[in-house]
């Protein structure tokens, strides 16, 4: 398969499928002003992201840097209150080094709310004209990075939606794409079968250790990665949810283990370790689904496959979300939010392979510019919180 589409060529050679201007607040105190700037551009691709905390955090700084230089992003406006700890000079330097238009507005030095909003909107207007001139270049499936998560899972997720997403992953990986699955807290009890799929025994040990770390972390917190709605939907235990979630990874060999912000070096299947290292700090690893989506995007995901049974409606800033509905009743209830009806598998109308092919084809169409349902509805959810990671070990990315 050598299907090509037109990507947005960035200075580092990576190519995007969207050309977004992001407006990023650097502390909650600048959130309102940043959102007012974005509110002036309902019909343009201008999106709000941000970090709420006033204390410094290396993880948040790195993720913000990766997001602002994501191939789907054309330019960045940082909005700072002025006294927060986020290193805005480093952040804007990271963006400037890629040649993208970047500006930082400090509310305390820009005349307050009204003047900062006015100045910000003027900058965005000029940046939109500039990013419209970005060079286009042919792009193939083998240049795509695709993430997958499941959220609002129920007892159908592991039977229909997740296996179909796994089938799509197998097809995309065979075409050279890099695919990322994640949430080690939802792989508890799967570590042994997963480790057997690793490219090397040493990587297998790393995969196993990542899940064991998640198990310890959640045990300390007292809750598994399991919401009340999972139980209402027929899931009884974390291991039942995990087995269903695991099949999103498909059947391909596992090429590596990455952490949020690490970009897969080549095509293949990667597990993202999302549970922080060291002692339990800062609370739950990912407080809601969008935190996981943001980490996939920080690792370069051009789009995310989101499998839901109960019926999540979220999208995301920066990279489109493809919503795969596992539950046929939910699909009928929320059809306007769902891109793919994997509930057909539950009802015996279509096979896992057929739905997997539909997802793969939709990925290509979205890469060509087709909007997903959540994208067209205007969903641009975003959340970034505190975490702490050590760099990945030497066995995590075996050479070819």
């Amino acid at each position, binding site marked *: 398969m050598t299907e090509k589409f037109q990507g947005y060529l960035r200075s580092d050679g990576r190519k995007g499928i969207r050309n977004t201007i992001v407006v990023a607040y650097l502390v909650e105190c600048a959130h309102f002003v940043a959102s007012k700037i974005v509110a002036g551009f309902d019909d343009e691709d201008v999106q709000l992201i941000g970090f709420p905390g006033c204390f410094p955090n290396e993880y948040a700084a790195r993720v913000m840097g990766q997001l602002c230089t994501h191939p789907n992003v054309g330019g960045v406006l940082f909005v700072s209150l002025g006294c927060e700890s986020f290193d805005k000079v480093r952040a804007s330097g990271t963006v400037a080094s890629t040649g993208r238009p970047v500006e930082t507005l400090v509310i305390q030095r820009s005349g307050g709310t009204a003047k900062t909003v006015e100045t910000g909107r003027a900058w965005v207007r000029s940046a939109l004209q500039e990013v419209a001139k970005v060079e286009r270049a042919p792009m193939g499936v083998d240049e795509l990075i695709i993430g997958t998560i499941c959220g609002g899972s129920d007892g159908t997720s592991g039977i229909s939606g997740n296996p179909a997403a796994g089938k799509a992953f197998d097809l995309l990986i065979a075409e050279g794409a890099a695919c990322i699955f994640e949430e080690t807290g939802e792989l508890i009890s799967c570590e042994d079968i997963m480790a057997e799929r690793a490219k090397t025994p040493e990587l297998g040990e790393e995969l196993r250790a990542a899940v064991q770390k998640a198990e310890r972390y959640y045990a300390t917190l007292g809750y598994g990665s*399991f919401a009340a709605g999972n*139980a209402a939907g027929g899931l009884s235990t974390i291991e039942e949810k995990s087995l269903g979630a695991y099949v999103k990874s498909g059947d391909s060999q596992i090429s590596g283990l990455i952490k949020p912000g690490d970009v897969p070096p080549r095509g293949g299947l990667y597990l993202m370790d999302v549970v922080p290292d060291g002692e339990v700090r800062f609370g739950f690893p990912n407080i809601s689904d969008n935190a996981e989506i943001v980490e996939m995007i920080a690792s370069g995901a051009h789009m995310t496959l989101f499998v839901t049974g109960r019926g999540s409606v979220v999208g995301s800033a920066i990279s489109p979300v493809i919503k795969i509905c596992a539950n046929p009743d939910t699909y009928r209830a929320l059809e306007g939010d769902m891109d793919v009806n994997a509930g057909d598998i539950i009802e015996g109308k279509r096979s896992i392979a057929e739905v997997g092919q539909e997802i793969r084809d939709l990925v290509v169409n979205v890469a060509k510019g087709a909007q997903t349902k959540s994208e067209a509805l205007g969903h641009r959810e975003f959340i970034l919180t505190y975490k702490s990671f050590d760099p990945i070990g030497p066995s995590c990315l075996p050479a070819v």
Partner: protein
Amino acid sequence: MTGPFLHLHPDDNVLVARASAPAGTEVKLANITATLAHAVPLAHKIAYRDIVAGERILKYGMPIGIATEDIAAGAHVHIHNIRSAYTPTHALQDANGQSPEASK
């Protein structure tokens, strides 16, 4: 075929509802044909055969928990009679799959 239920793996001691099954539905199980005493919502599980307390529950051929009491063939298998081998399950009033409005 077990009516509106799936037997996902030959080793499994539970079936999964592929559609909501009303009370009175007849289901062919391992050794008997049972009549459901209560409705079983889509994607919930019932026992494929008698399960004794302490036994592992198998779905997809893999362990998904441990029976906390004896479970009769055909009975709903869920958080009231199985537990995780890892972390406790958090649930609210709607864990039986009925919406709070419907159970009023």
